[in-house]
């Protein structure tokens, strides 16, 4: 080790803080000048920490879902009654759905309808909640051999959750629809009136740019719209709700606060495309 006299060492130790401060300020400027720098570092860190997250999240998931959930036992009776009622209702809706499906098939056959291709999809586990103060995103595991899945649509059991914005070798970041930077083109109601759903860092994203003559009505269903080309038409998002006058928001169908397993759909990726590209 280098031996320095005591005054020199003291001077050096006094210099470290200002030097580090200047370096950090430089980093802020570099991150501002080149957005990719932060994204690249973040993807690298996410990938590196994925095994750790996975190991750490496992016991938590065990307590939540398994026999250890003490809270669930207290709610057992109430939950049961609610589920029985809900099941009755669902059975009725099932009959309606079957009738509609039959009618839909009949109508399609009369129209020479060309079916849309079934998208490629896989299930992904949420291993980390990486939201910040002004950011809502989650980290999911993806299969090892997955190709670039940026722009894949993430859904939970009930509705759209968000969109993949970064994908690494074994993890991907999903930008949630509640994030401040999220803008999703949507179609509202039966006639598919166009609007943009804007995340506002709270539980309910806001609807903007709807036609002034035809405002969204309370309770109308909100579906994704194909405008812009990232989302396909007709994925369920939520229902319209009015918090204040003239300020319609969307109540998402998806349980945004307790995301555990997501399905990632790749609409722009054709299943045979990789093979075709690989063979010269």
């Amino acid at each position, binding site marked *: 080790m280098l031996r320095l006299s005591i005054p020199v060492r003291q001077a050096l130790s006094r210099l470290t803080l200002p030097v580090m401060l200047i370096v*950090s300020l430089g980093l802020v400027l570099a991150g501002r000048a080149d957005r990719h720098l*932060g994204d690249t*570092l973040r993807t690298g860190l996410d990938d590196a920490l994925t095994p750790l997250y996975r190991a750490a999240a496992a016991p938590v998931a065990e307590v939540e879902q398994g026999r250890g959930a003490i809270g669930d036992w207290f709610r057992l009776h109430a939950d049961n009654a609610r589920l029985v009622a809900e099941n009755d209702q669902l059975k009725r809706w099932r009959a309606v759905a079957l009738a509609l499906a039959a009618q839909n098939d009949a109508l399609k056959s009369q129209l020479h309808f060309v079916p849309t291709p079934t998208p490629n999809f896989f299930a992904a586990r949420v291993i980390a*909640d990486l939201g910040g103060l002004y950011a809502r995103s989650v980290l999911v595991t993806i299969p090892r051999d997955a190709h670039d899945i940026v722009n894949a649509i993430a859904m939970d059991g009930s509705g759209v959750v968000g969109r993949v914005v970064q994908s690494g070798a074994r993890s991907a970041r999903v930008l949630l629809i509640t994030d401040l930077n999220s803008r999703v083109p949507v179609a509202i109601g039966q006639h598919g009136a166009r609007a943009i759903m804007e995340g506002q860092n709270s539980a309910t994203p806001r609807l903007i740019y709807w036609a002034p003559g035809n405002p969204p009505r309370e309770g109308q269903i909100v579906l994704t719209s194909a405008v812009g080309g990232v989302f396909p038409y007709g994925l369920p998002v939520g229902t319209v709700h009015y918090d204040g006058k003239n300020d319609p928001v969307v109540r998402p169908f998806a349980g945004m606060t307790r995301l555990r397993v997501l399905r990632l759909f790749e609409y722009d990726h054709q299943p045979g495309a990789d093979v075709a590209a690989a063979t010269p």
Partner: protein
Amino acid sequence: MEGVEFWRGLDRVARHALPAVSIAIVMILLAIPGLVPLQAGVRVGFVMASVYFWSLYRPAALPAPLVAVLGVLLDLLGASPLGLWAVLLLLEQAAMATIRRALVRRGFLMVWLVFAGFVAVLTAAEYAARAVLDLAMLPPAPILAQGIVTILIYPLLAVALIRAHRGAAAPEQA
């Protein structure tokens, strides 16, 4: 004899590394979904309180380069502008270095009050810096919540840290 020296050296390294390593580990653990409410605020609060504590009672435990690395890690985990927290944490450390002598002999309540002042200034600085870097007005509610959580975390953390300060992180016991 050499064997004893080796183990003593290892012990000393471990005691020196404890503060920074424990901060990093807790920071990463706080990314597990569904652990505590307001997770992002708790993570920032934990780091702010830890850096405050160690810079006050054991400045040698957290040298400036380590603080900068922890700040960058916080930025990468919490989706804040790259380098922002590195700058803020270093400023916190620099401010602490100037008032350390006066504060170190005071009681817990005074230390906590000064911490609340630090949090107010740092939170305002974070809000201003984010607004300038993103060129946008941001809703103030989340950052206020983070500030309050941070101030409330300190007493809980201090209990654990004082124990570590006197025991596992003390190099003079090695």
